[in-house]
Protein backbone atom coordinates (compact mmCIF):
# COMPACT_ATOMS: atom_id res chain seq x y z
CA UNK A 1 0.00 0.00 0.00
CA UNK A 2 1.26 3.44 -0.81
CA UNK A 3 2.29 5.61 2.06
CA UNK A 4 0.09 8.41 3.24
CA UNK A 5 0.28 11.43 0.97
CA UNK A 6 -0.33 13.89 3.74
CA UNK A 7 2.60 13.25 5.99
CA UNK A 8 3.42 15.42 8.92
CA UNK A 9 6.45 16.59 6.97
CA UNK A 10 4.26 17.83 4.12
CA UNK A 11 1.89 19.53 6.55
CA UNK A 12 4.74 21.32 8.24
CA UNK A 13 6.28 22.43 4.95
CA UNK A 14 2.92 23.45 3.52
CA UNK A 15 2.14 25.43 6.66
CA UNK A 16 5.44 27.29 6.37
CA UNK A 17 5.00 27.82 2.63
CA UNK A 18 1.53 29.28 3.22
CA UNK A 19 3.23 31.87 5.41
CA UNK A 20 5.55 32.73 2.53
CA UNK A 21 8.52 30.56 3.45
CA UNK A 22 10.25 29.99 0.10
CA UNK A 23 12.71 27.49 1.52
CA UNK A 24 9.87 25.30 2.72
CA UNK A 25 8.30 25.39 -0.73
CA UNK A 26 11.69 24.67 -2.32
CA UNK A 27 11.86 21.56 -0.19
CA UNK A 28 8.45 20.54 -1.49
CA UNK A 29 9.78 21.05 -5.02
CA UNK A 30 12.78 18.85 -4.27
CA UNK A 31 10.49 16.19 -2.85
CA UNK A 32 8.07 16.12 -5.76
CA UNK A 33 10.02 17.29 -8.80
CA UNK A 34 11.02 13.84 -10.03
CA UNK A 35 7.62 12.12 -9.68
CA UNK A 36 5.77 15.16 -11.02
CA UNK A 37 8.09 15.54 -13.99
CA UNK A 38 7.86 11.82 -14.77
CA UNK A 39 4.07 11.91 -14.59
CA UNK A 40 4.02 14.76 -17.09
CA UNK A 41 6.66 13.04 -19.24
CA UNK A 42 4.67 9.82 -19.52
CA UNK A 43 1.59 11.86 -20.34
CA UNK A 44 2.94 14.23 -22.99
CA UNK A 45 6.07 12.45 -24.22
CA UNK A 46 8.46 15.32 -24.83
CA UNK A 47 10.89 16.18 -22.02
CA UNK A 48 10.66 19.93 -22.71
CA UNK A 49 6.87 19.91 -22.60
CA UNK A 50 6.93 17.83 -19.43
CA UNK A 51 9.39 20.22 -17.79
CA UNK A 52 7.20 23.20 -18.77
CA UNK A 53 4.19 21.51 -17.21
CA UNK A 54 6.03 20.64 -14.01
CA UNK A 55 7.44 24.16 -13.73
CA UNK A 56 4.04 25.74 -14.27
CA UNK A 57 2.46 23.38 -11.75
CA UNK A 58 4.98 24.39 -9.10
CA UNK A 59 4.45 28.08 -9.91
CA UNK A 60 0.67 27.81 -9.65
CA UNK A 61 0.97 25.81 -6.44
CA UNK A 62 3.22 28.50 -4.98
CA UNK A 63 0.76 31.22 -5.99
CA UNK A 64 -2.28 29.41 -4.65
CA UNK A 65 -0.89 27.62 -1.64
CA UNK A 66 -2.67 30.02 0.69
CA UNK A 67 -5.94 28.56 -0.57
CA UNK A 68 -4.93 24.99 0.32
CA UNK A 69 -6.76 23.93 3.46
CA UNK A 70 -7.36 20.28 4.25
CA UNK A 71 -6.50 18.64 0.94
CA UNK A 72 -3.20 16.73 0.85
CA UNK A 73 -0.52 18.76 -0.88
CA UNK A 74 0.56 15.87 -3.09
CA UNK A 75 -2.91 15.23 -4.53
CA UNK A 76 -3.46 18.95 -4.99
CA UNK A 77 -0.13 19.44 -6.78
CA UNK A 78 -0.70 16.48 -9.06
CA UNK A 79 -4.21 17.72 -9.78
CA UNK A 80 -2.74 21.00 -11.00
CA UNK A 81 -0.26 19.15 -13.19
CA UNK A 82 -2.93 16.76 -14.49
CA UNK A 83 -5.08 19.72 -15.53
CA UNK A 84 -2.08 21.24 -17.29
CA UNK A 85 -1.57 17.98 -19.17
CA UNK A 86 -5.21 18.05 -20.29
CA UNK A 87 -4.78 21.72 -21.29
CA UNK A 88 -1.75 20.66 -23.31
CA UNK A 89 -3.86 18.25 -25.33
CA UNK A 90 -6.80 20.68 -25.59
CA UNK A 91 -4.44 23.13 -27.25
CA UNK A 92 -3.96 20.53 -29.93
CA UNK A 93 -0.56 19.37 -28.80
CA UNK A 94 -0.03 15.71 -29.44
CA UNK A 95 2.02 13.15 -27.64
CA UNK A 96 5.59 14.04 -28.48
CA UNK A 97 8.32 11.71 -29.48
CA UNK A 98 10.32 10.69 -26.50
CA UNK A 99 14.01 10.52 -27.29
CA UNK A 100 15.61 7.11 -27.10
CA UNK A 101 17.70 6.38 -24.05
CA UNK A 102 20.88 6.76 -26.10
CA UNK A 103 19.95 10.23 -27.29
CA UNK A 104 18.45 11.67 -24.11
CA UNK A 105 20.63 13.74 -21.81
CA UNK A 106 21.11 10.74 -19.55
CA UNK A 107 24.17 9.39 -21.29
CA UNK A 108 24.83 6.61 -18.87
CA UNK A 109 22.77 4.60 -16.44
CA UNK A 110 24.65 2.65 -13.81
CA UNK A 111 21.86 0.16 -13.54
CA UNK A 112 22.11 -0.62 -17.22
CA UNK A 113 23.79 -3.81 -18.20
CA UNK A 114 27.23 -3.41 -19.76
CA UNK A 115 26.39 -5.98 -22.44
CA UNK A 116 25.48 -3.95 -25.56
CA UNK A 117 23.10 -6.64 -26.81
CA UNK A 118 21.20 -6.80 -23.53
CA UNK A 119 21.22 -3.03 -23.27
CA UNK A 120 19.76 -2.69 -26.75
CA UNK A 121 17.03 -5.17 -25.84
CA UNK A 122 16.29 -3.30 -22.60
CA UNK A 123 16.02 -0.06 -24.57
CA UNK A 124 13.64 -1.68 -27.02
CA UNK A 125 11.47 -3.02 -24.21
CA UNK A 126 11.37 0.49 -22.71
CA UNK A 127 10.37 1.96 -26.06
CA UNK A 128 7.60 -0.57 -26.54
CA UNK A 129 6.16 0.10 -23.09
CA UNK A 130 6.28 3.86 -23.69
CA UNK A 131 4.54 3.41 -27.03
CA UNK A 132 1.85 1.24 -25.50
CA UNK A 133 1.13 3.91 -22.87
CA UNK A 134 1.11 6.61 -25.53
CA UNK A 135 -1.52 4.65 -27.46
CA UNK A 136 -4.01 4.88 -24.59
CA UNK A 137 -6.64 7.60 -24.47
CA UNK A 138 -5.84 10.47 -22.12
CA UNK A 139 -8.04 9.33 -19.25
CA UNK A 140 -6.73 5.79 -19.17
CA UNK A 141 -3.17 7.00 -19.65
CA UNK A 142 -3.45 9.39 -16.74
CA UNK A 143 -4.88 6.72 -14.45
CA UNK A 144 -2.24 4.12 -15.22
CA UNK A 145 0.60 6.65 -15.03
CA UNK A 146 -0.53 7.82 -11.61
CA UNK A 147 -0.81 4.21 -10.47
CA UNK A 148 2.13 2.40 -12.06
CA UNK A 149 4.60 5.23 -12.62
CA UNK A 150 3.82 7.31 -9.53
CA UNK A 151 2.65 4.50 -7.26
CA UNK A 152 -0.44 6.32 -6.05
CA UNK A 153 -3.25 4.59 -4.19
CA UNK A 154 -6.65 4.51 -5.86
CA UNK A 155 -8.16 7.04 -3.46
CA UNK A 156 -5.30 9.44 -4.18
CA UNK A 157 -5.87 9.04 -7.92
CA UNK A 158 -9.59 9.66 -7.44
CA UNK A 159 -8.75 12.86 -5.56
CA UNK A 160 -6.31 14.00 -8.26
CA UNK A 161 -8.74 13.34 -11.09
CA UNK A 162 -11.94 14.26 -9.28
CA UNK A 163 -13.65 11.01 -10.30
CA UNK A 164 -15.25 8.19 -8.29
CA UNK A 165 -13.15 5.29 -7.05
CA UNK A 166 -14.96 2.90 -9.39
CA UNK A 167 -13.94 4.99 -12.37
CA UNK A 168 -10.32 4.85 -11.28
CA UNK A 169 -10.52 1.09 -10.90
CA UNK A 170 -12.08 0.70 -14.33
CA UNK A 171 -9.63 3.00 -16.11
CA UNK A 172 -6.61 1.29 -14.59
CA UNK A 173 -7.91 -2.18 -15.45
CA UNK A 174 -8.78 -1.29 -19.03
CA UNK A 175 -5.47 0.52 -19.48
CA UNK A 176 -3.52 -2.48 -18.26
CA UNK A 177 -5.46 -4.78 -20.55
CA UNK A 178 -4.75 -2.56 -23.56
CA UNK A 179 -1.08 -2.22 -22.71
CA UNK A 180 -0.86 -5.98 -22.27
CA UNK A 181 -2.46 -6.53 -25.65
CA UNK A 182 -0.02 -4.09 -27.22
CA UNK A 183 3.00 -5.72 -25.62
CA UNK A 184 1.91 -9.22 -26.58
CA UNK A 185 2.33 -8.25 -30.20
CA UNK A 186 6.05 -8.34 -29.45
CA UNK A 187 6.64 -11.82 -28.04
CA UNK A 188 10.37 -11.54 -28.60
CA UNK A 189 10.49 -8.93 -25.89
CA UNK A 190 7.41 -9.81 -23.85
CA UNK A 191 6.88 -13.57 -24.07
CA UNK A 192 3.68 -14.86 -22.59
CA UNK A 193 3.72 -17.91 -20.35
CA UNK A 194 2.38 -19.94 -23.27
CA UNK A 195 5.32 -18.76 -25.37
CA UNK A 196 7.72 -19.72 -22.64
CA UNK A 197 6.18 -23.18 -22.30
CA UNK A 198 6.27 -23.69 -26.06
CA UNK A 199 10.01 -23.17 -26.20
Amino acid at each position, binding site marked *: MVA*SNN*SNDDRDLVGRARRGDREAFTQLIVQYQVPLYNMALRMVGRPDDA*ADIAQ*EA*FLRAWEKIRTLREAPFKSWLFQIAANLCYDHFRRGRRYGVMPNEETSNV*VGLGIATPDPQERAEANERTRL*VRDSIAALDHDMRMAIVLRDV*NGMAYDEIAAVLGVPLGTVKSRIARARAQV*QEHLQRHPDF*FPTREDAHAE
Partner: protein
Amino acid sequence: MPNEPRTPAEPTLEELSAFLDNELDSATQARVADHVAGCDECRARLDGLRETAHAIRALPMETPPRRFTIPEQRRQGWRWAPAGWIGSAALALLLIAVGIQNLHLPAGPTATTGSSSTNSGGLAFAPATRSEKGALAPLSAPSPSTQQFDAQSAGAAANAGTVLDPSNSSRRLVLDTDRTSYATTGRMLVTVQLIDSPSTSLQSADQGLTLTLVRNGQGVALRPVGVESVNGTPIFGGWYDLASFPLSAPRAGDYRLEATWLIPDGSGRVLQTSVPVRIAG
Protein backbone atom coordinates in the same frame (compact mmCIF):
# COMPACT_ATOMS: atom_id res chain seq x y z
CA MET B 1 -25.23 -18.62 -28.47
CA PRO B 2 -25.69 -20.56 -25.28
CA ASN B 3 -25.54 -18.50 -22.21
CA GLU B 4 -22.90 -20.35 -20.25
CA PRO B 5 -23.33 -19.89 -16.55
CA ARG B 6 -20.26 -18.30 -15.03
CA THR B 7 -19.44 -19.04 -11.50
CA PRO B 8 -20.57 -16.06 -9.45
CA ALA B 9 -17.19 -15.90 -7.84
CA GLU B 10 -15.35 -15.35 -11.11
CA PRO B 11 -13.59 -11.99 -10.82
CA THR B 12 -14.03 -9.25 -13.37
CA LEU B 13 -11.12 -7.55 -15.10
CA GLU B 14 -11.48 -4.61 -12.70
CA GLU B 15 -11.38 -6.92 -9.71
CA LEU B 16 -8.29 -8.77 -10.94
CA SER B 17 -6.49 -5.51 -11.59
CA ALA B 18 -7.48 -4.03 -8.23
CA PHE B 19 -6.55 -7.34 -6.56
CA LEU B 20 -2.99 -6.83 -7.77
CA ASP B 21 -2.95 -3.44 -6.10
CA ASN B 22 -4.53 -4.69 -2.88
CA GLU B 23 -7.30 -2.18 -3.48
CA LEU B 24 -10.30 -4.43 -2.88
CA ASP B 25 -12.22 -4.68 0.34
CA SER B 26 -11.08 -7.63 2.39
CA ALA B 27 -14.04 -9.86 1.52
CA THR B 28 -13.61 -9.33 -2.22
CA GLN B 29 -9.84 -9.69 -1.94
CA ALA B 30 -10.32 -13.07 -0.28
CA ARG B 31 -12.93 -14.15 -2.83
CA VAL B 32 -10.65 -13.30 -5.75
CA ALA B 33 -7.72 -15.05 -4.09
CA ASP B 34 -9.80 -18.18 -3.56
CA HIS B 35 -11.02 -18.19 -7.11
CA VAL B 36 -7.63 -17.58 -8.67
CA ALA B 37 -6.09 -20.37 -6.63
CA GLY B 38 -8.38 -22.87 -8.33
CA CYS B 39 -8.77 -21.38 -11.80
CA ASP B 40 -5.95 -21.64 -14.32
CA GLU B 41 -7.60 -19.21 -16.72
CA CYS B 42 -7.99 -16.44 -14.16
CA ARG B 43 -4.52 -17.08 -12.82
CA ALA B 44 -3.14 -16.61 -16.34
CA ARG B 45 -5.13 -13.37 -16.71
CA LEU B 46 -3.83 -12.17 -13.37
CA ASP B 47 -0.25 -13.06 -14.31
CA GLY B 48 -0.62 -11.12 -17.54
CA LEU B 49 -1.86 -8.03 -15.73
CA ARG B 50 0.89 -8.36 -13.15
CA GLU B 51 3.61 -8.61 -15.79
CA THR B 52 2.14 -5.61 -17.58
CA ALA B 53 2.16 -3.55 -14.41
CA HIS B 54 5.75 -4.63 -13.74
CA ALA B 55 6.78 -3.61 -17.25
CA ILE B 56 5.36 -0.13 -16.72
CA ARG B 57 6.89 0.18 -13.27
CA ALA B 58 10.25 -0.78 -14.76
CA LEU B 59 10.30 2.38 -16.89
CA PRO B 60 13.26 4.44 -15.73
CA MET B 61 12.52 7.51 -13.63
CA GLU B 62 13.94 10.31 -15.75
CA THR B 63 15.83 13.24 -14.33
CA PRO B 64 14.20 16.60 -15.11
CA PRO B 65 16.21 18.45 -17.76
CA ARG B 66 16.22 21.66 -15.71
CA ARG B 67 15.67 22.89 -12.23
CA PHE B 68 12.28 23.99 -11.03
CA THR B 69 12.18 27.18 -9.03
CA ILE B 70 9.76 29.79 -7.84
CA PRO B 71 9.96 33.55 -8.25
CA GLU B 72 11.12 35.85 -5.49
CA GLN B 73 7.56 37.08 -5.04
CA ARG B 74 4.25 35.45 -5.73
CA ARG B 75 2.38 36.52 -8.82
CA GLN B 76 -0.62 38.40 -7.54
CA GLY B 77 -3.91 36.55 -7.83
CA TRP B 78 -7.10 38.23 -9.04
CA ARG B 79 -8.65 37.72 -5.61
CA TRP B 80 -6.62 40.77 -4.56
CA ALA B 81 -7.62 42.68 -7.63
CA PRO B 82 -8.23 46.08 -6.01
CA ALA B 83 -4.80 46.10 -4.41
CA GLY B 84 -3.35 44.76 -7.64
CA TRP B 85 -4.96 47.55 -9.63
CA ILE B 86 -3.60 50.15 -7.27
CA GLY B 87 -0.17 48.57 -7.49
CA SER B 88 -0.33 48.32 -11.26
CA ALA B 89 -1.43 51.93 -11.58
CA ALA B 90 1.40 53.05 -9.34
CA LEU B 91 3.87 50.98 -11.33
CA ALA B 92 2.54 52.40 -14.59
CA LEU B 93 3.01 55.92 -13.33
CA LEU B 94 6.49 55.03 -12.18
CA LEU B 95 7.34 53.56 -15.57
CA ILE B 96 6.14 56.69 -17.30
CA ALA B 97 8.06 58.87 -14.89
CA VAL B 98 11.44 57.23 -15.08
CA GLY B 99 11.34 55.62 -18.51
CA ILE B 100 11.20 51.90 -19.16
CA GLN B 101 14.64 51.76 -20.65
CA ASN B 102 16.25 52.77 -17.41
CA LEU B 103 14.52 50.14 -15.31
CA HIS B 104 16.18 46.86 -14.47
CA LEU B 105 13.24 44.57 -14.03
CA PRO B 106 14.04 41.29 -12.36
CA ALA B 107 14.55 38.45 -14.81
CA GLY B 108 12.12 35.60 -14.66
CA PRO B 109 8.44 35.08 -14.21
CA THR B 110 7.76 37.86 -11.72
CA ALA B 111 7.85 40.24 -14.65
CA THR B 112 5.35 38.22 -16.64
CA THR B 113 1.76 37.26 -16.37
CA GLY B 114 2.45 33.66 -16.76
CA SER B 115 2.40 31.73 -20.00
CA SER B 116 4.24 28.53 -19.49
CA SER B 117 6.75 29.26 -22.20
CA THR B 118 7.71 32.57 -20.63
CA ASN B 119 7.93 31.04 -17.21
CA SER B 120 10.09 28.21 -18.32
CA GLY B 121 12.18 30.59 -20.36
CA GLY B 122 12.75 32.72 -17.31
CA LEU B 123 13.72 29.70 -15.36
CA ALA B 124 15.95 28.21 -17.95
CA PHE B 125 18.29 25.42 -17.15
CA ALA B 126 21.35 26.82 -15.42
CA PRO B 127 23.84 24.01 -15.12
CA ALA B 128 26.14 23.74 -12.21
CA THR B 129 25.75 27.17 -10.70
CA ARG B 130 25.15 27.72 -7.03
CA SER B 131 21.92 29.56 -6.58
CA GLU B 132 19.87 30.11 -3.48
CA LYS B 133 16.78 30.20 -5.64
CA GLY B 134 17.61 27.10 -7.58
CA ALA B 135 19.36 25.05 -4.96
CA LEU B 136 18.40 21.45 -5.46
CA ALA B 137 18.95 20.48 -1.88
CA PRO B 138 17.55 23.02 0.58
CA LEU B 139 19.17 23.76 3.89
CA SER B 140 16.95 21.26 5.63
CA ALA B 141 17.81 18.35 3.31
CA PRO B 142 19.42 15.48 5.19
CA SER B 143 23.11 16.19 5.58
CA PRO B 144 25.84 13.71 6.41
CA SER B 145 28.38 13.64 9.16
CA THR B 146 31.84 13.59 7.62
CA GLN B 147 33.86 13.07 10.77
CA GLN B 148 36.34 10.21 10.42
CA PHE B 149 35.36 9.83 6.77
CA ASP B 150 38.09 7.90 5.03
CA ALA B 151 38.05 8.99 1.42
CA GLN B 152 41.02 6.74 0.65
CA SER B 153 38.84 3.68 1.12
CA ALA B 154 36.06 5.09 -1.03
CA GLY B 155 34.76 2.62 -3.56
CA ALA B 156 35.64 -0.43 -1.52
CA ALA B 157 32.07 -1.11 -0.47
CA ALA B 158 30.17 -4.08 -1.85
CA ASN B 159 27.00 -2.12 -2.64
CA ALA B 160 28.33 -0.08 -5.50
CA GLY B 161 27.12 1.30 -8.78
CA THR B 162 29.38 2.60 -11.52
CA VAL B 163 28.66 4.23 -14.83
CA LEU B 164 31.10 5.18 -17.56
CA ASP B 165 30.88 8.27 -19.71
CA PRO B 166 30.46 6.84 -23.23
CA SER B 167 32.31 9.78 -24.71
CA ASN B 168 35.19 9.72 -22.24
CA SER B 169 36.32 6.28 -21.17
CA SER B 170 38.29 7.60 -18.21
CA ARG B 171 35.32 9.45 -16.70
CA ARG B 172 33.18 7.54 -14.23
CA LEU B 173 30.55 8.16 -11.61
CA VAL B 174 30.89 5.73 -8.72
CA LEU B 175 28.32 5.51 -5.94
CA ASP B 176 28.54 3.15 -3.01
CA THR B 177 27.15 2.54 0.43
CA ASP B 178 28.70 0.52 3.25
CA ARG B 179 25.78 -1.89 3.37
CA THR B 180 22.60 -2.74 1.50
CA SER B 181 20.31 -2.93 4.54
CA TYR B 182 19.89 -0.57 7.46
CA ALA B 183 17.73 -0.19 10.53
CA THR B 184 15.31 2.74 10.44
CA THR B 185 17.55 4.47 12.97
CA GLY B 186 20.78 3.36 11.30
CA ARG B 187 23.56 5.38 9.70
CA MET B 188 24.30 4.95 6.03
CA LEU B 189 27.80 5.60 4.77
CA VAL B 190 27.63 7.00 1.25
CA THR B 191 30.54 7.71 -1.05
CA VAL B 192 30.39 9.33 -4.46
CA GLN B 193 33.45 9.59 -6.68
CA LEU B 194 33.45 11.89 -9.68
CA ILE B 195 36.36 10.39 -11.54
CA ASP B 196 37.90 12.62 -14.21
CA SER B 197 35.51 15.44 -13.46
CA PRO B 198 36.19 18.61 -15.48
CA SER B 199 35.95 20.49 -12.18
CA THR B 200 37.87 20.06 -8.96
CA SER B 201 35.23 21.82 -6.89
CA LEU B 202 33.93 20.09 -3.78
CA GLN B 203 30.64 21.99 -3.98
CA SER B 204 27.87 19.68 -5.16
CA ALA B 205 26.16 22.55 -7.03
CA ASP B 206 29.38 23.29 -8.95
CA GLN B 207 29.69 19.61 -9.84
CA GLY B 208 26.01 19.25 -10.74
CA LEU B 209 25.72 16.35 -8.32
CA THR B 210 22.45 15.31 -6.69
CA LEU B 211 21.65 12.38 -4.43
CA THR B 212 18.14 11.10 -3.99
CA LEU B 213 16.66 8.23 -2.02
CA VAL B 214 13.68 7.02 -4.05
CA ARG B 215 10.75 4.71 -3.42
CA ASN B 216 7.55 4.42 -5.43
CA GLY B 217 8.53 7.39 -7.52
CA GLN B 218 8.87 9.65 -4.49
CA GLY B 219 12.27 10.91 -3.52
CA VAL B 220 14.08 12.53 -0.66
CA ALA B 221 16.99 14.69 -1.71
CA LEU B 222 20.16 14.22 0.31
CA ARG B 223 22.75 16.92 0.63
CA PRO B 224 26.00 15.71 -0.96
CA VAL B 225 28.96 17.09 0.96
CA GLY B 226 32.37 17.30 -0.66
CA VAL B 227 35.00 15.68 1.50
CA GLU B 228 38.28 15.84 -0.32
CA SER B 229 40.04 15.39 -3.63
CA VAL B 230 42.03 12.21 -4.06
CA ASN B 231 44.42 12.43 -7.00
CA GLY B 232 42.20 15.09 -8.51
CA THR B 233 39.00 13.08 -8.04
CA PRO B 234 36.36 14.95 -6.04
CA ILE B 235 34.92 12.70 -3.33
CA PHE B 236 31.56 13.38 -1.72
CA GLY B 237 30.14 11.46 1.15
CA GLY B 238 29.63 10.86 4.83
CA TRP B 239 27.31 9.16 7.27
CA TYR B 240 23.63 9.96 6.86
CA ASP B 241 21.40 9.46 9.88
CA LEU B 242 18.38 7.65 8.44
CA ALA B 243 16.17 8.65 11.37
CA SER B 244 16.45 12.27 10.21
CA PHE B 245 15.12 11.55 6.71
CA PRO B 246 11.62 12.88 5.96
CA LEU B 247 10.42 9.49 4.70
CA SER B 248 6.76 8.64 4.32
CA ALA B 249 5.32 5.95 6.53
CA PRO B 250 5.97 3.09 6.57
CA ARG B 251 9.64 4.03 6.62
CA ALA B 252 10.76 0.45 6.15
CA GLY B 253 10.98 -0.77 2.60
CA ASP B 254 13.10 -1.10 -0.50
CA TYR B 255 14.56 2.11 -1.86
CA ARG B 256 17.09 3.11 -4.47
CA LEU B 257 19.80 5.63 -3.77
CA GLU B 258 20.36 7.55 -6.99
CA ALA B 259 23.31 9.73 -7.86
CA THR B 260 22.88 12.07 -10.80
CA TRP B 261 25.84 13.96 -12.21
CA LEU B 262 25.28 16.76 -14.65
CA ILE B 263 28.80 16.80 -16.05
CA PRO B 264 30.05 20.35 -15.49
CA ASP B 265 31.43 20.87 -18.97
CA GLY B 266 28.48 22.76 -20.41
CA SER B 267 27.36 19.81 -22.53
CA GLY B 268 24.21 19.14 -20.52
CA ARG B 269 25.06 15.45 -20.43
CA VAL B 270 24.18 13.41 -17.38
CA LEU B 271 25.59 10.28 -15.78
CA GLN B 272 23.30 8.47 -13.42
CA THR B 273 23.74 5.42 -11.24
CA SER B 274 21.93 3.88 -8.34
CA VAL B 275 22.23 1.21 -5.68
CA PRO B 276 19.51 -0.65 -3.78
CA VAL B 277 18.99 0.30 -0.16
CA ARG B 278 16.71 -1.59 2.19
CA ILE B 279 15.46 0.02 5.36
CA ALA B 280 14.33 -2.70 7.69
CA GLY B 281 11.60 -2.15 10.24
